[in-house]
């Protein structure tokens, strides 16, 4: 062995310290397992901190009409019925308790007048459902879980990147990681492993994700042979900042619209009234007056009787509407739309949306209490990911679990705002619980193939010894621009084909990047290592998008602009690395939904007559 590495042994190794990872760690330690949490950045800095609006759970504190059944229905409808209904059911039923227990761990959500956890309106949710704290709910979540977690005995390996998962006799046996700070190398042996690595949106030039969102979790699972589902479905959040250029993509919470924010085009028209899809027509206001009635009751803290404003349509609809307005030449000054909350009193805006107020004030020199914001779509979330057992969260590889954004199933073709925070709590908990349970049944740590370790070590150190190649930052920049252009919010067959070719060219460039420097905290080296994962997940996305010849949720094809309920509306894509080493795409159906759950859905949406 040319390079030293340290070997660690833990019952459960959790990769990722965002909401799902920490929630899994809390549950696994509670079950008595020894737990290691490995994360790319420092504890408490994970991408979950960026979540703003809230966590959806049918607590019915704010509107007593709410129930898990309605939440289930909303989630399925928002996901255009491509969701794993079993996960949607578990999520709707269990998320209220996941929120309640957070409060006992120290979370301080905003209160109702009765002193209970307050709930906010969000796109696609029939009732006010999002537990929140101003517009910094993600921070509250991660801090709460962090503070709970550090007292449970989990061990945290901060600023480590996992490069590879090991399989021994078909079962996951551990992972390889390197320490980003000192460049040391580590092998973690684990009885079970939980992937909680979040998403992939850093593959697009305009995104709301941080550098962490390079999708290594998705790639690790794919490389080890797990089935990946729904990779064509990427959510473009309708409201990201668009000006100045350096902040392009930073999220503007949906909470702005939940609090009465209005979208207008360059002509001052509230264009969302023109984009209400058929399936939502009964539920949304068709006049400004009715929309205003709804907002007024929200401001007055009353239960609204009017229908909600069309700004609160699901994210896919709003994002595409802003895009269409731009295509029609009615874009705002810098190519987006105007979002205006300044009609509400200054104090209320500052109280309800303090983060947004500061973000615009400090980054764009815009006072949102006085002038409108400029917003545009930004790559925000990937619905696709590791296919898991809906109850245990185990992937198709025994011993490998996945939870949160890296897993797929709950959100179908489009995620509702607020469902991701409750997703990671609900399924993070289940993943931790079942991973610990399974680990308890495993006698001993499996041996890991030394040759495989050696190969991974070599790959990991390779960029440092390369010379004269490109700066990895440049390759990443070009890749992101390519994805934005060819696999963006609106897709076309020929562009997707081009993208697949381009990705092969990027692979060649990736192989010869040379970051220079040493192993000590070398961002160039780290970036050089990330590109491989980015290329593979970009390819998964393009491949699945090319196959799906329809438009649905987070996947829109200019050449197939309408949904095809009969065929595509019933099947989900699956990608797997086949034995020949190729990316293989197929399509499968979830088991038929049970009758009692089916009754909760809108019969009109199901299009069964077409079968």
């Amino acid at each position: 062995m040319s390079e030293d590495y340290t070997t660690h042994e833990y019952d459960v190794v959790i990769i990722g310290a965002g909401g799902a990872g920490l929630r899994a760690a809390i549950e696994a330690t509670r079950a008595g397992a020894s737990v290691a949490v490995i994360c790319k950045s420092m504890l408490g800095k994970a991408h979950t901190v960026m979540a703003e609006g809230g966590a959806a759970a049918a607590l019915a504190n704010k509107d007593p009409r709410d129930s898990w059944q309605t939440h289930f229905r909303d989630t399925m409808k928002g996901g255009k019925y491509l969701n794993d209904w079993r996960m949607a059911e578990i999520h709707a039923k269990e998320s209220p308790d996941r929120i309640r227990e957070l409060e006992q761990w120290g979370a301080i959500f905003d209160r109702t007048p009765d002193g209970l956890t307050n709930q906010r309106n969000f796109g696609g949710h029939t009732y006010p459902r999002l537990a929140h704290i101003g517009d910094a709910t993600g921070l509250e979540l991660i801090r709460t879980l962090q503070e709970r977690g550090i007292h449970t005995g989990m061990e945290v390996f901060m600023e480590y990147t996992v490069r590879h998962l090991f399989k021994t006799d078909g079962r996951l046996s551990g992972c390889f990681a390197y320490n980003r700070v000192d460049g040391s190398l580590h092998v973690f042996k684990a009885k079970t492993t939980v992937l909680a690595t979040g998403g992939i949106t850093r593959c697009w030039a305009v995104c709301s994700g941080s550098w962490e969102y390079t999708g290594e979790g998705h790639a690790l699972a794919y490389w080890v042979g797990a089935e990946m589902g729904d990779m064509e479905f990427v959510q473009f959040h309708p409201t990201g900042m668009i000006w100045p250029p350096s902040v392009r993509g930073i999220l503007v919470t949906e909470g702005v619209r939940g609090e009465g924010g209005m979208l207008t085009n360059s002509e001052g028209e509230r264009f969302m009234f023109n984009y209400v899809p058929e399936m939502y027509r009964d539920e949304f206001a068709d006049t400004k007056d009715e929309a205003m009635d709804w907002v007024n009751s929200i401001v007055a803290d009353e239960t609204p009787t009017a229908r909600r404003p069309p700004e609160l349509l699901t994210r896919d609809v709003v994002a595409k509407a802003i895009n269409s307005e731009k295509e029609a030449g009615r874009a705002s000054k810098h190519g987006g739309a105007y979002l205006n909350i300044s009609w509400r009193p200054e104090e209320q805006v500052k109280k309800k949306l303090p983060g947004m107020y500061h973000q615009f004030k400090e980054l764009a020199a815009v006072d949102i209490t006085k002038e409108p914001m400029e917003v545009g779509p930004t790559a925000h979330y990937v619905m696709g990911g590791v296919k898991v057992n809906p109850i245990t969260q185990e992937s198709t590889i025994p011993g490998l679990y996945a939870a949160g954004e890296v897993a797929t199933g709950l959100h179908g073709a489009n995620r509702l705002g607020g469902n991701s925070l409750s997703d990671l709590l609900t399924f993070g908990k289940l993943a931790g619980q079942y991973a610990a349970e399974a680990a308890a049944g495993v006698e001993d740590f499996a041996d890991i193939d030394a040759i495989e370790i050696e190969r991974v070590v070599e790959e990991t150190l390779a960029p440092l010894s390369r010379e004269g190649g490109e700066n990895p930052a440049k390759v990443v920049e070009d890749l992101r621009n390519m994805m934005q252009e060819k696999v963006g919010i609106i897709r076309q067959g020929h562009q997707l084909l081009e993208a697949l070719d381009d990705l092969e060219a990027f692979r060649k460039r990736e192989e010869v990047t040379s970051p220079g420097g040493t192993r000590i905290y070398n961002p160039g080296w780290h970036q050089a290592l990330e590109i491989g994962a980015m290329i593979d997940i970009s390819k998964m996305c393009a491949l699945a998008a090319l196959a799906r010849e329809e438009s649905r949720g987070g996947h829109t094809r200019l050449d197939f602009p309408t949904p095809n309920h009969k065929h595509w509306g019933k099947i989900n894509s699956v990608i797997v690395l086949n034995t020949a080493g190729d990316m293989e795409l197929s399509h499968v159906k979830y088991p038929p939904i049970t009758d009692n759950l089916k009754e909760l859905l809108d019969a009109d949406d199901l299009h069964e007559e077409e079968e």
Partner: protein
Amino acid sequence: MGFTAKYMVGRHWTKNAGLRRMGEKIPLPMKKGFGTTDRVDAWWKGPSAMAFYLGIMVVYATWRGFMEADFWIFADFGRSAGEQTMAIESNGSHVLSPLFSPLIVPDEHSWMPEALWWLSPAMFILIFPAGFRGTCYYYRKAYYRAFFQNPTACAVGKPWNEYKGETGLLIVQNLHRYFLYAAIAYLPILSFDVYLSMRFEGGNWGISVGTLVLLLNVIMLAGYTFGCHAFRHLVGGGANHWTGKSGPTLRYRMWKMSTWFNERHKEWALYSLLVVMFADFYVYACTDAMFGWTDYMLWGGI
């Protein structure tokens, strides 16, 4: 380009390039020693101005206090010179300088032992307001910075290597609350002084400029006192529960009120000090022939 780091020389500052040699190995923290910092703003302005302001105030108050003492340095100015400058008297009304209120003259008419008769009335009265301000959380910041350089300004090197903060001798700062109790007692006393300035012989009422000065002084001191951190704690901040059966409790409302003043505590602290000194100066100027000021009657008073 290749990826060995290419260190470029700045285009904008080349004429200063010799000031700091490049490539020299330097340890971090590189800034050790008094006044060293990377800050580019005028960080020394604030503490210097504060030292100047507080210095003048302290010197003035001390001088005025001693002026009325039977003390040899001040014999030519003070009480022994035969003229008192503590209060403007007119037709039975008193505009009493706040530095001397409540007026307890240590002499044969008081309960004071003879050994203390030389004291100025200000000197034992001033202990309380001076103590209140001296232990005030705002003034502590101001003088730790301005006088003790502990620190002079944020991220600026200090002259001291040892530090005990308020754990050593300065643990006495925790007595702030007692001075608060005294300061609260002063408010009715000073209000009474306002009343005295309006009562004239034969039960007549009147308002002079001096009355308004004293009134302003009471208002300023009240604003300063209500925003006191100890006051804010005592009225409601010490509680974690603020909700009663019928909504927010009185303690919450008091806390909220105190919070409003507390957010402007700095301003109340600095301006109220100025007003106290001005009130005293006004009385002094109206009673000392050297200035020749008169306390104008605005209404009544005859």
